[in-house]
């Protein structure tokens, strides 16, 4: 493209952020100087970024020519995706800064022996999860450090001659950052401590060296292989003055004291990769400890109340919690929760808080377990009571990735999803439905009965648990007549077992208001009646929400709940809500479904239209592609998706989502109640 054509295109793409003083001429000239392929790359990504933010697209256009001069395509992609990630997480300012920082990516020219974060992220996540006993967040970033919530690792490592060695550096870095958190490096504000020295960079390097010396023996207890590499990194630089750091009782305070002592008098050996400090490490850690302490207190209070009710009138028990914890040689923590000296099984929410606090503190101080009772209410710290309230609601948020088809990349932890209780509706609805459809329900039950995995007796078997007397008589007659005795003389019971679990996800978006909602509820009533006959395991969940921050799932019937009055109440209580961000709902529910042990796992969606959400581009291609990606993930996890829709436009997009055969259109809403059960029957026989 020539400059003029480019400028026209840029004017069009960046129009909203141009002004009298900000034109596109210089941009067009710079881009025109690039190779054709690079030009296409830039224009394509401007279009993509436009959908997130025009200003960011402009900043990209401005940075791209210089960046593409020095970066090859892989590196440029990494640069760009990192910047978009930053924008997603931290906003325009950070995104812009990341775009300008392309120099940091020059080292990562396409290199056959490189190791990249993208390539190894999953293995590193599992690795760290094995160390910590719980999943930790890992992300790639320009600076290798930890803020105690997340471990930030380089996006690419090329300093070693082989890919295996480069990967090894990742492993060692991840282990070191984990160990900093596990063994209390950020109990002190190290970034501030280093900043107080005349040369903060040198101070940081020295302190990180000292901390590494302190952490190495701890790491050696669990992972001698990694500790050996760390020792090799220190390159024999052992100073007698550092020896006390290897003692088991050494803490970060010892490292800080040595830093003061050695500052200016000691040169730490160069490292293959430098670990830095995050300015917020200490504050995040403290905030987390504070929050979890509050949550733990609230949960323990609840637990105590439950115990006292169970115990019935045993009021004079002190209600005092205690924790026996011990640290095994390998650094893993074990603990027992006790109430008045008796061991107590900690509910999951409690256990999670305790384990997390143990990771941060090494042990749980006694005053964290005090039952503050009324005192706490009186002091009434608003903020903490807010978090406590949320915690006791007991529904922790789930985070799911979302597929961005334009970036061809996941947006990490993009959606926040919660399970929300449904208020029971008017149960006369159920009776009315059953009365209205009585003959059809009978009919359905009969056809479902025919499918039931019942015991049948197989005759004339080679072996079995009983004798088939007809066969024996025949055989005797045959024998008398000189015919050889047949071998099949037994009967055997055979159970045609249906090893199937089905999860129905029901669209509760606003567009179902009126007829559709009623038809959905009727369909569920009929379905449940029929399924009870069949004995298949099934669950029902509604889904809706507004924006990625508030995806909601409404459990109607979980797998382990019987079809009872409470479930019927919730079916009656299904009401139209907001939008349909399908991807997150599918990811959540296919996780639920995968946890059920069954040969076949069926995920059936009842839907009235395309995926859609409030104002953030989920409508259209983006939503469809994310939904498709979520369905593919479900498929990989062994879930078979199927869709029942009433959208007459379904033919345009459902085959793309579910394949040609895995969906059905019910063309009249009023048929839905009968059809759903029938379709299920056809699907599962």
């Amino acid at each position, binding site marked *: 493209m020539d400059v003029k054509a480019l400028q026209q295109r840029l004017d069009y793409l960046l129009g909203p952020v141009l002004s009298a003083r900000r034109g596109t001429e210089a941009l067009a000239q710079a881009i025109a100087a690039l190779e054709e392929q690079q030009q296409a790359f830039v224009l394509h990504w401007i279009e993509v970024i436009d959908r997130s933010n025009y200003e960011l697209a402009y900043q990209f256009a401005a940075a791209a020519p210089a960046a593409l001069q020095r970066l090859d395509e892989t590196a440029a992609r990494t640069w760009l995706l990192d910047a978009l990630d930053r924008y997603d997480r931290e906003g325009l300012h950070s995104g812009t800064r990341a775009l300008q920082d392309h120099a940091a990516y020059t080292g990562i020219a396409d290199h056959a022996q490189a190791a990249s974060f993208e390539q190894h992220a999953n293995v590193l996540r599992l690795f760290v999860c094995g160390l910590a006993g719980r999943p930790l967040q890992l992300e790639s970033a320009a600076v290798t450090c930890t803020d105690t919530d997340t471990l930030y690792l380089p996006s690419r490592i090329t300093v070693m001659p082989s890919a295996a060695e480069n990967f090894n550096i990742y492993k060692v870095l991840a282990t070191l950052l984990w160990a900093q958190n596990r063994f209390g490096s950020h109990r002190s504000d190290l970034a501030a401590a280093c900043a107080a020295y005349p040369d903060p960079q040198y101070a940081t390097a020295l302190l990180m060296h000292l901390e590494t010396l302190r952490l190495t023996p701890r790491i050696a207890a669990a992972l*001698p292989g990694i500790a050996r590499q760390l020792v090799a990194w220190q390159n024999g630089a052992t100073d007698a003055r550092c020896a006390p750091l290897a003692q088991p009782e050494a803490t970060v305070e010892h490292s800080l004291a040595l830093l003061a002592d050695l500052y200016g008098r000691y040169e730490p050996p160069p490292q293959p990769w430098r670990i830095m400090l995050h300015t917020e490490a200490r504050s995040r850690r403290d905030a987390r400890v504070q929050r979890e302490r509050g949550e733990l207190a609230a949960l323990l209070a609840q637990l105590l109340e439950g115990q006292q009710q169970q115990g019935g009138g045993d009021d004079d028990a002190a209600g005092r919690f205690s924790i026996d914890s011990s640290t095994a040689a390998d650094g893993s923590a074990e603990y027992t929760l006790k109430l008045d000296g008796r061991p107590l099984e900690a509910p999951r929410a409690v256990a999670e808080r305790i384990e997390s606090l143990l990771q941060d503190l090494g042990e749980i101080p006694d005053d964290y377990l005090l039952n503050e009772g009324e005192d706490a209410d009186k002091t009434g710290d608003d903020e903490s009571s807010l978090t406590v309230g949320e915690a006791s609601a007991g529904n922790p948020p789930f985070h799911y990735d979302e597929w961005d088809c334009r970036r061809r990349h996941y947006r990490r932890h993009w959606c926040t999803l919660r399970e929300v209780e449904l208020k029971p509706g008017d149960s006369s609805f159920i009776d009315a439905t059953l009365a209205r459809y009585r003959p059809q329900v009978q009919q359905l039950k009969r056809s479902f009965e025919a499918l039931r995995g019942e015991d049948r007796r197989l005759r004339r078997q080679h072996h079995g648990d009983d004798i088939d007397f007809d066969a024996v008589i025949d055989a005797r007659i045959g024998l008398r007549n000189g015919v050889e005795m047949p071998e099949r003389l037994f009967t055997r019971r055979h159970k045609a077992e249906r090893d199937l679990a089905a999860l129905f996800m029901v669209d509760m978006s606003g567009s179902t208001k009126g007829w559709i909602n009623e038809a959905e509820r009727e369909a569920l009533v009929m379905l449940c009646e029929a399924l009870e006959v069949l004995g298949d395991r099934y669950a029902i969940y509604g889904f809706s929400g507004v924006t990625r921050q508030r995806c909601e799932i409404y459990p109607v019937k979980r797998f382990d709940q019987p079809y009872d009055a409470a479930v019927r109440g919730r079916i009656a209580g299904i009401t139209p809500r907001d939008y349909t961000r399908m991807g997150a709902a599918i990811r959540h529910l296919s996780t639920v479904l995968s946890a059920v042990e069954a040969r076949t796992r069926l995920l059936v969606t009842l839907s009235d239209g395309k995926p859609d959400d409030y104002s953030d581009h989920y409508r259209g291609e983006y939503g469809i592609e994310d939904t498709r990606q979520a369905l593919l993930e479900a498929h990989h996890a062994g879930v078979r998706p199927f869709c029942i829709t009433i959208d007459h436009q379904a033919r345009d997009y459902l085959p793309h989502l579910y394949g040609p055969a895995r969906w059905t259109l019910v063309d009249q809403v009023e048929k839905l109640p009968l059809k759903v059960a029938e379709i299920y029957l056809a699907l599962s026989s």
Partner: protein
Amino acid sequence: MTATLTPLHSKILPAEARIIEQQPYYQPLGDEVALFEAACANQLPVLLKGPTGCGKTRFIEYMAWRLKRPLITVACHDDLTAADLVGRYLITNNETTWIDGPLTRAVRAGALCYLDEIVEARRDTTVVIHPLADDRRMLPVEKRGELLQAPPEFALVLSYNPGYQSVLKDLKPSTRQRFVAIEFRYPEAATEETIIRSESGCDAATASALVRLAQLTRNLKGNGLDEGASTRLLVHAAKLIMRGVSPSSSCHGAIAEALSDDPEMLRTLDEFAASVF
């Protein structure tokens, strides 16, 4: 002229009553030996709970030896019916012959009867287990119209892994509440090292590395693995190492591949193995 009965025999006579003459190696994990003896002395049936490969089978062999009773083991599978346990008629030379099933034989012989992984069996097996497991201690042999009274030496033991069976496959409360339960967990690190060393003859350093490896994999339970490495797998790896196979290949073959098929998980497990030695 007769029906070929070999497949039938092999199906219903899987477990001969075994008298265990040599003391099996068993490393107690807690007070389970005393508990088991007390339960047997009171004619109470026992339920062994715990993850796979943590020593349940070994324990029961040890107890059979200690109590000097024959042991009959039945590995339950999803096709196992009450008739498989109680017995059935066979046809030989124009005659019907009754053959006792393993449970009936155990009752008659006053043996320890160990039903391994009971939740796998058909639901109808509870019909014969229930009357045996409460204070009646009776076994109805319906087809012969017999009602056997179990002698005091007879002991019924079930095993059950609460870990990875879904809620839907849980043991019914009416079954559960008939049994004295003994819970097996993975042994403490030092005990587990002792077990590995005695079973494989490996040195202390190898055993301790393997136990640390196991700990890392157990941390991944629920985050990519259904179950962490059991003591059994550690013993397997140690035995391979003792035969001169390198630690990393031994751990890959005996542990990683036994836990997962997922390529990224396998790589992670290999990285663990590379780091613990």
